[in-house]
């Protein structure tokens, strides 16, 4: 590492980027190592996904007869596994959307309310801190710690009777689980939504809100006219984060919907069931199923990577 001094520090080298980060005009052993390292990790992160993708397009004999990371050749290429997986998992896509979308939107809105109520209303610090601490701690609660009471709670709520009018419209009884999932995901998503919005509102310009107050605007009016319109970027972060979390969660669906044979079974539940059933050794099918289940969050991630990164980093 003889040339350390020249290529020092990401930020420092910003000043001499023209020289050291320039293209291959000068051979720089240190930079070559750096890129080799980056490419090595790139390979590491891509191999499971790449191997899964090529396997999903192989016939059963192709799976056993070829290298796991080699693409299928003419005779071993088939779309059949994707077709089978889609037949098995397709309804799961709809079911997952039925609760993931409403739960995402409601939890984001309520999180924004809570954060606004806590930040902009001059709560005394000694009361605000413990309340905030409860919200922050709520992010980290393992779902196992609430699972048994949650099951008890939903068994006590006469949801089937209350929603009887929906079943009269021809919707299956199974869908009580979807309603339970919406409420449950809203409740357990609220802490992270509140904390994300709170860190955003904390840094919002006080002057504008103060001026509105002096003009006699009500709390509700300030939220609607000033805070909500300025919350757009944070709503993007929170909606993306929440959608990914809710779509990806297995535990609540396992407990509230219970069986993958239910008409209302979410896609993660059906996919998890593939691994435990007789088809578990049909890896081409499992891989195709994995990609179908991952498509919505992958699409969101590729379209909104920046917001996703911001959500996880906060």
């Amino acid at each position, binding site marked *: *590492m003889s040339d350390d001094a020249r*290529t*020092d520090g*990401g930020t*420092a080298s910003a000043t001499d980027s023209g020289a050291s980060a320039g293209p291959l005009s000068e051979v720089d052993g240190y930079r070559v190592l750096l*890129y080799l*390292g*980056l490419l090595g*990790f*790139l390979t590491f*992160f891509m191999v*499971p*996904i790449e191997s899964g993708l090529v396997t999903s397009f192989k016939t059963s004999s192709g799976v056993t007869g070829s290298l796991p990371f080699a693409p299928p050749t003419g005779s071993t290429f088939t779309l059949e596994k994707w077709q089978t997986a889609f037949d098995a998992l397709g309804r799961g896509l709809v079911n997952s959307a039925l609760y993931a979308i409403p739960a995402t939107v409601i939890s984001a809105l*309520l999180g924004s*309310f*809570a954060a*606004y*109520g*806590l930040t902009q209303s001059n709560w*005394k610090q000694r009361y*605000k801190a413990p309340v905030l601490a*409860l919200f*922050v701690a*709520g992010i*980290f*609660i*393992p779902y*196992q*710690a*609430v*699972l*048994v*009471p949650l099951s*008890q709670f939903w068994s006590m709520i006469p949801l089937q009777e209350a929603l009887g009018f929906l079943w009269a419209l021809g919707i299956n009884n199974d869908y009580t689980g979807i309603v339970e999932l919406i409420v449950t995901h809203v*409740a*357990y998503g*609220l802490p992270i939504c509140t904390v994300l919005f709170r860190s955003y509102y904390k840094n919002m310009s006080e002057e504008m809100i103060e001026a509105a107050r002096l003009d006699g605007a*009500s*709390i509700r009016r300030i939220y609607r006219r000033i805070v909500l319109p300025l919350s757009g970027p944070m709503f993007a972060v929170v909606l993306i984060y929440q959608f*990914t979390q809710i779509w*990806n969660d*297995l535990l609540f669906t396992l*407990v509230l919907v219970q069986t993958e044979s239910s008409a209302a079974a979410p896609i993660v539940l059906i*996919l*998890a069931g593939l*691994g*435990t059933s007789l088809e578990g050794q049909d*890896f081409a099918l*499992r*891989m195709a199923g*994995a990609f179908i*289940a*991952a498509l919505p*969050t992958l699409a969101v*991630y590729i379209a909104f*990577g920046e917001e*996703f*990164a911001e959500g*996880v*980093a906060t």
Partner: protein
Amino acid sequence: MTRNTDTGDGSGDAVTDGGVTEERGGSGFNPITALNERFGSDFVESSQFWLPPFLLVGLFVYGAIIWNLLISLTDFSGFGTPDYSDLDLEMYGRALADSGFVDAAINTFILLVGFTLVTLAIGLGLAILIDRNIRFENTFRTIYLLPMSLSFVVTAQFWAWMFNFNNGVINIVITSLGFGRVSWIGNPDIVLWAVMFALMWQFAGYAMVVFLAGLRAIPSEHYEAAKVDGASTVRMYWRVIIPQLKGSTISASVVLMVFALKAFDFLYSLVGGYRPPNGADILATKMVREAYANLNWAYASAIAITLFVMTLGIVGPYLYYQYNRGNL
């Protein structure tokens, strides 16, 4: 100075009146004014915003935990309603006498510490590599973080295939290098490390993002000062830069440890439903199995409380740290 000049709804008017009365000499007692004075100037008015979320979290998170604690003191099996009249610590005694529980607790601890340390180290390495003014930074970052957007259920399918005995990528690679095949999931001595490795793959990108934010917050003068002093790159990171990443390290560790405690979804999907591979049972999987496969709900609740206490042991100090930094 009163801020309660609400013109909209009725409660706001009442408060304004109350405020005025107070200033005149406080002849009558107005509960709204009293609450506002005690907790903050807009406490009551703002309740329309914070109260519904507060009730939901209070009921579903904290109410549920207290209820869970109560159930863990009964001998509820899952049928009917628990009998709350006869409470004792029987289930906790049963846990200590259950070798399956002790194994699961040890595995949980190994996963917690091992996974967190390895993921932090890899994440820090990735962040430093990416922060060195490279080209295609966004592409590298996007791909490193990509597994984090996938569900445990999805990544478990990929890794079930990676670890496959006959055709999995890992065994194909190591046999081509001249080593024998390894039963990654079937061998109880190895499976936990294999799981740890897969989880690291999923979350290293997360640690990278947190460290990257920390690195970018360090002023460039610190790099320049180290450079002027003639420090080597390794020395500069080790002595000057990494010590400043304390905040990022703490945040990332807490989140990673909590992920490790929750790894249920991954283990459920990897092979065996409620029964994870031998040697990979953790408290999170044992709790769900006891409740929903074995119908020992009170026992499951006791395991859940153990898991919750472990979480508190991690999150409690974190909250204290954040409070001291003025972040709460």
